Structures are given as structure tokens and as C-alpha cells.
């Protein structure tokens, strides 16, 4: 059983919902990303979505774009992100999902990436610009390595497309945990979403706190407090 499956099993046994915070790896430095991951776990995160910086994050808003720019100013690469995961893996079992755009993964090589990611202790990948139509070239290797692949659906997706996404995952509809993200910034909103989703994903609101405290010694603590409040909101 994968770490991700375990989390959802544990939660559903208690009727609980997963909190999935997002941060960009290397924002503002790889060292702080490590500290942030441990803090996120301590504050109640169930899974962590770790952004792989990309020069052209087309589907993201300005906050996460700037996080990517800060990480790239330090030349943070996919290789660095995998190394970071292997380091934190020595001290935590929290599932890590890599979130990113396809080009850095493609350039790294689908097969090599899948192997190295598994070895580093990555649990899943969510590649924004790799819809079911194009996913096969990566999925073959990701499946072989035993990593989970996570798809996005959108308010614009109709039933047919959502079905295609499920079929691509080759799982029964009911098996799949559904996470909801985009624009959740308060514990109240997180609580509302948690009523009907299996997981709540919070990105920009957390990255904003990092951005507002770039030079503050309390950055990690402040992120922790916010994530704790989200966890309490979910109940």
C-alpha cells in the first residue's frame, strides 16, 4: 500500500479529511523548504504538494509565479528537488506529491525521473500540462516505478472528460479520493470544502505568507500557525 493510500484509509476510518498544503521547492531556499516541510507536518498537513519551479508556470497566478522565480533565482532544478525529498525522507513518512509543468520532467527523462523519484521517496506526481491525452509517455514509467499520478479536473470539465480521467487512472470511480484546491485561503473556506471533498489543497495563501516574511526569522512559525488554523477549520 502506498503512503498516499494509507493516509486516506486512516482518515476515512475516522471520517477525517486530508489537508494538503502546497509550497514551491527552493522558495526562498532549499534549506528553508526542508524546515517548512517538517513544520507543515507538525501543524497537521497530511500530504505535501511540492512545487517544482518552472520558468513559464502558465496555469498559476502571480503569487506562485513569483515563488517559482525566487526558486529559479537560486537555480533550483528537478534534480535538486529529488535530492531534497531524499533528505527529508530520512526523518518523515509524510507523502510528497511533486507538482509541476512537464518540460523539466521531460528534459530529465521520463524513465530516469520515475526511477529516481521513487528512490528519493516521492509518492506521486501532478503535472499540470499533461492531460490524459498526452500522459502515456510518462505514465508507463511512473506506473512501473509504483508512483501515483494525480490528474486535475476543472469546473470546465464535463462528465465525459471526468470519465476519461478516471478511465486513464484505471480505477473505479469510488476508489479515488478527490481533492479540491484553487483559491482556498481561510480556515472557514477549508472547512466548507472539506464537507464534500476528501482533501483540501491550499497553495497561494501559504506561499503568500512565505513571500511576506522572506526576511523574517518567524516565517516558518507563521506558516505553521496558518496551517494549524486550516487543519482546525477542517475539523
Amino acid at each position: 500500500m502506498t503512503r498516499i493510500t494509507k493516509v486516506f484509509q486512516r482518515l476515512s476510518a475516522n471520517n477525517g479529511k486530508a489537508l494538503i498544503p502546497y509550497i514551491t521547492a527552493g522558495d526562498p531556499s532549499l534549506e528553508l523548504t526542508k524546515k517548512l516541510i517538517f513544520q507543515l507536518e507538525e501543524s497537521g498537513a497530511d500530504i505535501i504538494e511540492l512545487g517544482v519551479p518552472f520558468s513559464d508556470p502558465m496555469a498559476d497566478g502571480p503569487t506562485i509565479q513569483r515563488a517559482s522565480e525566487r526558486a529559479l533565482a537560486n537555480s533550483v532544478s528537478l534534480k535538486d528537488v529529488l535530492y531534497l525529498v531524499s533528505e527529508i525522507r530520512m526523518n518523515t513518512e509524510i507523502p510528497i506529491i511533486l507538482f509541476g509543468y512537464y518540460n523539466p520532467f521531460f528534459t530529465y527523462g521520463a524513465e530516469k525521473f520515475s526511477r529516481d523519484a521513487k528512490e528519493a521517496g516521492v509518492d506521486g506526481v501532478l503535472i499540470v500540462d499533461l492531460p490524459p491525452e498526452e500522459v502515456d509517455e510518462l505514465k508507463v514509467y511512473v506506473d512501473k516505478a509504483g508512483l501515483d499520478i494525480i490528474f486535475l479536473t476543472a469546473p470546465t470539465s464535463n462528465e465525459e472528460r471526468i470519465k476519461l480521467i478516471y478511465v486513464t487512472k484505471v480505477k473505479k470511480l469510488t476508489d479515488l479520493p478527490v481533492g479540491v484546491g484553487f483559491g482556498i485561503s481561510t480556515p472557514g473556506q477549508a472547512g466548507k470544502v472539506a464537507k464534500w471533498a476528501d482533501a483540501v489543497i491550499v497553495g497561494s495563501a501559504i506561499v503568500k505568507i512565505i513571500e511576506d516574511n522572506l526576511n523574517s526569522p518567524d516565517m516558518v512559525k507563521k506558516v505553521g500557525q496558518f496551517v494549524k488554523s486550516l487543519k482546525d477549520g477542517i475539523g
Partner: protein
Amino acid sequence: MLPDKKGHFGIYGGRYVAETLMPALLELEESYYRHKDDREFQEELNYYLREYVGRETPLYLAERLTQRLGGPKIYLKREDLCHTGAHKINNTLGQIILAKKMGKTRIIAETGAGQHGVATATVAAMFGLECEIYMGVEDIKRQSLNVFRMKLLGAKVQPVSSGTNTLKDAMNEAMRDWVTNIYNTFYIIGSVAGPHPYPMMVRDFQSVIGRETKRQILEVEKRLPDHLIACVGGGSNSMGLFYPFKDDVEVGMTGVEAAGLGIDTGKHAASILDGSVGVLHGSKTYLLQDENGQIKHTHSIAAGLDYPGVGPEHSYFHDIGRVKYASVTDKEALDGFRLLTITEGIIPALESAHAIAYTMRLAPKLDKEKVIIVNLSGRGDKDINTVAEALGVKI
């Protein structure tokens, strides 16, 4: 016939986009296939191409340029004579008629040099649709004339200050807008780039260039040309000229990329010659990227060529060897700009000047009996300030 059903040209192209865009692309593809061979749609498009754009454009024998270079006959396909001064309007017209058929009320576009922005703002004004143009702040600075033209035409120009502040960032921002406003908004992409169906659709709309050229050259020379030459940024004017000739194996074709300050300086925009395969803006194609898959900064004196990718079908033509790709530097392009201006009284766009510059290199090596056709994709009024600056002249 390429692309295949999912928009692939060999290994290139496709639809590498966020799920949020997928339904919009499918809707666009479906309605494009439904209308493209429809008589009513074609009649409307042809009517405006004729009466509004001023097609067909001449195929002009450049006698003094031919003499000067001492080689084959050089013909210029005069896309610079299109309404708005460049070939871009062939495509914006096609897409906006499609937008109307789809019931969309708002038009967005990205622009680099501003030519595509102007061509979009123009047809939006003509059809009375709301229009917003995304443009990098760097390009806004160097193309202030086109910015003003767009505003006069009633478009809102949205400055984009992210990444390199140029065309690719404007495209990112336009895609974000599209995701947010998908229900009423049509995104008019200006090149044979982006996710399927854009590379195919823009190619089809621009192919009017090559179809006319073929008819015209057969009429005057009673034979096909030996060589076609066009500049390549995203690659829409070259694709438009080349595509109708692709099965005429005796016709050689050269796409001219921007070598900027020189390929070895790294400050250029020659995606095919110096790039590697990757995924950007929805399609797999040759890109200028670093070893970690981050997109590189590009440079060209011609804003319209200053783009780190290239249309996927060009990548395919390169791999199968159907089109040869070459490059010329900023400096050579300026030489081309000056030579055409002085020998023919035609001031070319700096983009098109790249094709002229390559012709200067090629023509002296060929027999006088041969025939070359150069796509003069746009006129150079917009570039006067850039050229003056490059020549150290104060206006």
C-alpha cells in the same frame, strides 16, 4: 494528412495544457472542423480577404535586387501590402469569423512585435467585438507605435511583466485569461504554435499565401520556383508560403531563424538550429532551454522573431528534411533591410529582412535561370526607430 487526430506532427505538437483549457480546445477543434470546409464560412472569409485585406497580394519581380545579387530571378510575395501591413491579418480574420460562429463576444491575443496585436485589434474593431491584447513590457517599450495603434483601434493593451517580459510571457498571460474567461472568450493565437488545433488552423488560414504564390508563379514563369525563403519565429508566414508546396519535391524551402548577436553568443532566437525538443505553450517542439528544462531568454532585433519556440510542424519538417533551416544575425538582417529599401524602394519589416539577408547569401551561388520567391511578410514602418538606433541615428 498531418496532424493526426490528437494534433501530432510526428512526435511534435499535441495538447500539453492544463485540464482547465482542454474543454475549450476541444470545442474549438470541433467547430473548426465543422466550419472549415463549409461554403458559407469560406465565402465570408474570402470576401473579407478580398475586400478588406486587399488580396490577392502581388508576386513582384524585384529586378534591381536580382541584378544587384547577380543570380536567379527574385520574386517577392508582397504580404507587406496586406491591410495593417503584414500577413498576420490572414489568420486573425479566419479566427474571428470562427469566433463569431461560436458565439464568443470577447477576443484576446498575445503579441510580440505588435503586428499580430494590431491585426487582431483591427478585425475586432471591424466586427465590433471587445478585445484585449497581452504584450510584454519590454516589447511595449520597443514597439510603442503599434501599442498606440491598438489603443486607437479600441483594444485594451495589457502590459505583462513576468519572466522575460516578452512574447512568451504575453502568451502565458493570455492563456491564464482564457482559462478564467472561457465561456465568452476566444483566444486568437498569432502563430502556428500553441496547442492543437492552433498550429493546424493558423497554417490553414495562412496557406492562402502559398496557394496564391503557386498560381501566380505558374502564370508568369510557367513553372514552379526553385526556392522559397521566409523568416521563422513561431513560423506562420513561412508555413503559409511553404505548406501548399510541400509535395512539390523540386521546390527547395529555407526557413530563416534569428541568430541575434550570433548563435555562439547564446543571444539569439534560433530554436531549431540551436534548441532541443521540449514542451512549451501546449506543444512539443524545438525549444531554447537550459539543461534543466527551463526556458531561456532569447534575443533578436526583430521582436516578432524573439520567441524561444517554433511551430511544431516546422520541427517535423526539419526532422524529415523537407525544409532547410538557416539563420542570419541582427547585423545581416539590417544589411538586408537596407539593401531592399535602396534597390526596390520597399522598406521591409525587420522580421522579413532576415529572409532578404539569407537571399543575399544564397542568390549569388545560384544560376541565373533559377527562380527564388521570398516572402515579404511585413512592412518596416514599425521598425524605423529600432533601425535608427541600430545605425546610431537620432530621429
